[in-house]
């Protein structure tokens, strides 16, 4: 399965201090794409949470591992943005990555919940290589167009 190359790709080392630069980029890009201020902030937050999880869980805080980000500006029938984040960490069962019950107030366990709440589509999967996990997220400018199944806009990357 192949598809259009990303409009923008970003590789960074797994250093927490680089996250603010990625947020700024996503904020600016989502503004240009046409999301409103609140949505732009939300999307940047979702990406930040995904990257923080790669650093904390995937790479167990090692700060010199690669993170790959691909960004597509979706133009056709469903205007919006797709963001794919890939790591080279050990593979785990994607179904084990899930948000916890929010009723139980305790520190942590909010990241995945935030990502799923903010984005219209959010899926974790193993990369086709031996190593590495991937998360694909999409957010549409007119979410009323989104069908209940929350299927992605076009076939996933490989």
């Amino acid at each position: 399965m192949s598809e259009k190359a990303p409009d923008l790709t970003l590789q960074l080392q797994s250093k927490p201090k680089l996250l603010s630069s990625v947020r700024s980029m996503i904020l600016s890009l989502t503004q240009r794409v046409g999301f409103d201020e609140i949505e732009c902030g939300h999307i940047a937050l979702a990406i930040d949470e995904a990257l923080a999880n790669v650093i904390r869980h995937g790479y167990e805080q090692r700060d010199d591992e690669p993170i790959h980000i691909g960004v597509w500006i979706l133009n056709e029938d469903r205007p919006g943005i797709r963001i794919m984040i890939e790591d080279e960490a050990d593979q785990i069962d994607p179904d084990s990555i899930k948000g916890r019950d929010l009723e139980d107030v305790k520190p942590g366990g909010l990241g995945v919940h935030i990502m799923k709440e903010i984005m219209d589509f959010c899926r974790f999967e193993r990369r086709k290589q031996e190593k590495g996990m991937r998360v694909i997220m999409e957010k549409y400018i007119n979410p009323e167009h989104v069908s209940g199944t929350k299927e992605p806009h076009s076939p996933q990357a490989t």
Partner: protein
Amino acid sequence: MTPNEELTINIEKRPEMTVISPQGDIDLSRAPGFRTNIAEVFSEKPAKVAVDLSGVPYMDSSGVATLVEGMQLANRSGTVFVLVALQERVKSIFEIARLDTVFKIVDELTQAEEV
């Protein structure tokens, strides 16, 4: 390190409460420093702690987790714990995490005195 690596945090010990005022984004790179500061403040068992977030334009779940920890420390030591002056973006993450009703949140520092 470089100037912006660490969060700037002012801690002011007033007679009625201790006010913690972080300045800047609180994300994965800065939550650990923030956590240390909160723990230090609680180690002195103050009657009331207010975190003035007016200078925090952005917070992610690692910042929120630190504040949940603060609330737990507060519950344990009988300290009153109040969040003050959340900017819109920061308020929004508390709402998504359904924590906006769990924390005591006020708009201005003067209101924190009455909590």
